[in-house]
């Protein structure tokens, strides 16, 4: 399938898992290589965010898996979709010992989620504009 649902990369790092783990799971570590600023509540369900640049583009994450020092997983919003879109991709870091260092694998999956209303279920009727849009928002919120 040409649509990439899953991205995977593996990199060999000349540092023990504990060091790599800290770089991935602490605010200080994340801010040193990933974001420019970061915060993280390191527990499943915990919130995390990273911020880039002066304009403050922020990625909101939710911690999903914390198995020190082997697996760290989080979900985040899919770039380009509306901020309130519930679809998220899942990012998982796997740390395996490799000699004195670490083999780090990152997978990100979920790019190919099909929106529930992708087909059909478009708007009909003739009263367009914000009234209808806001009605749909209310319906969506009621349903979720």
């Amino acid at each position, binding site marked *: 399938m040409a649509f990439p649902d899953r991205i995977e*990369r593996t990199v060999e790092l000349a540092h023990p898992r504990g060091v790599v783990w800290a770089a991935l799971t602490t605010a200080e570590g994340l801010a040193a*290589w990933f974001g420019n600023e970061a915060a993280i509540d390191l527990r499943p369900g915990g919130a995390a965010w990273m911020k880039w640049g002066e304009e403050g583009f922020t990625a909101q994450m939710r911690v999903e898996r914390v198995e020190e020092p082997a697996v760290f997983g989080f979900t985040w919003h899919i770039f380009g979709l509306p901020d309130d879109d519930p679809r998220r991709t*899942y990012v998982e870091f796997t740390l395996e010992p490799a000699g004195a260092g670490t083999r780090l694998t*990152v997978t*990100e*999956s979920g790019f190919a989620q099909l929106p529930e209303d*992708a087909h059909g279920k478009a708007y009909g009727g003739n009263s367009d504009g914000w009234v209808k849009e806001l009605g749909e928002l209310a319906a969506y919120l009621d349903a979720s």
Partner: protein
Amino acid sequence: MPAEAQAAAGPDIEAVAEQVFTALADPTRRAIVAALAAGGPATATDLAAGLPITRQAIAKHLALLAGAGLVRAEPGERRRVRYRLQSAPMQVAQQFLAALARDWDRSLGALAGHLDQTARGPTTPPRHQTRTAPNPRTP
């Protein structure tokens, strides 16, 4: 959550994305879609007033866009049918682009560089000037 993410992958998202890219490969259709995005629902006549093409040509493009699910004709008399942008197919295409734009190579390179720097000792690590988010929204 990861299981859900996997389960939702289906064969027709690719078809949806392909229709979006095909539709947007044409500059006139891009202009029509951009006009609907900027100004909201409009008739072929409205669109012809703002674009350097005939109403007939616009009607043809609108029919193609409707076939691809990118616009929807609202009920109305023939010449007064208004077309409204449909965002769902765009969102599918955006997911495709987000996957392509996710730059883990760069991020993991930054991680390796950071770890090497830190291990090398107490020299001040260079302040990350060229770092970017793993998606294209960064400045």
